[in-house]
């Protein structure tokens, strides 16, 4: 968790350099925060000593952050949007992070590649 701040700074710095507006930069910061937290807490189940690979790609039309890990895969098939009123009656606030990511980003893709989990967060540049 102590590296999260470093990751957020890395993404914010590059999104700012790519001249995305402030609200888009903030959206990326939070989406990457949520995605990395999910990797740490769920894919690696909070165990230390694992890696997370983060790649940023900037092109004229979009900004993409790819986050890879080799932990427990995310089961997209079993994911359901959180029922917020019901969450107040539950002990966990499950699914909130993924929900936030999907609402903030233009495109979110999960892939399994060479035994690794990969999530791609994409935001298109306003024309």
């Amino acid at each position, binding site marked *: *968790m102590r590296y999260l701040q470093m990751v957020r700074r890395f993404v914010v710095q590059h999104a700012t350099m790519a001249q995305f507006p402030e609200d888009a930069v903030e959206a990326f910061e939070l989406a990457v925060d*949520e995605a990395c*937290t999910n990797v740490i807490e769920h894919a690696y189940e909070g165990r230390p000593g694992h890696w997370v690979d983060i790649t940023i790609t900037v092109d004229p039309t979009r900004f993409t952050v790819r986050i890879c890990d080799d932990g427990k895969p995310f089961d997209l098939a079993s994911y359901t949007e959180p029922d917020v*009123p019901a969450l*107040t009656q539950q002990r966990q606030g499950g699914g909130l992070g993924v929900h*936030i990511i999907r609402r903030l980003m233009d495109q979110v893709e999960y892939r399994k590649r060479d035994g690794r989990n990969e999530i791609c967060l994409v935001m298109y540049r306003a024309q």
Partner: protein
Amino acid sequence: MNDQPIHKVDWQRDGTAVVVRIAGRVDSRNAFDFDQEVHTGVLSTDETFVLDCSSLHYISSAGLRVMLKLAKAFSKPKRFALCGLTENITEIITISGFDRIISIFDTAEQALANA
């Protein structure tokens, strides 16, 4: 980008109503500390809890879960409300759907009068 790593919490109690002003950032690194601080600070006699977010710059789902716990602990007949949301915090609260389950006011005074 304001990247203050640690939240700061200020408590003001008037009878059975408490206004807690949180400043800085709440994310997965410090949400547990925030939760503990709130848990130990609340009195069993407290009936109204207002979370003043006017100095809150950033919140992730980890911080939202602490808000959910508070909303649950202060569900009717007790009262829980948020106030002073900045533009970016408002957006997160809205996309999370929390605006449908938590009362939101502009100021702490309005929250205390109407929560």
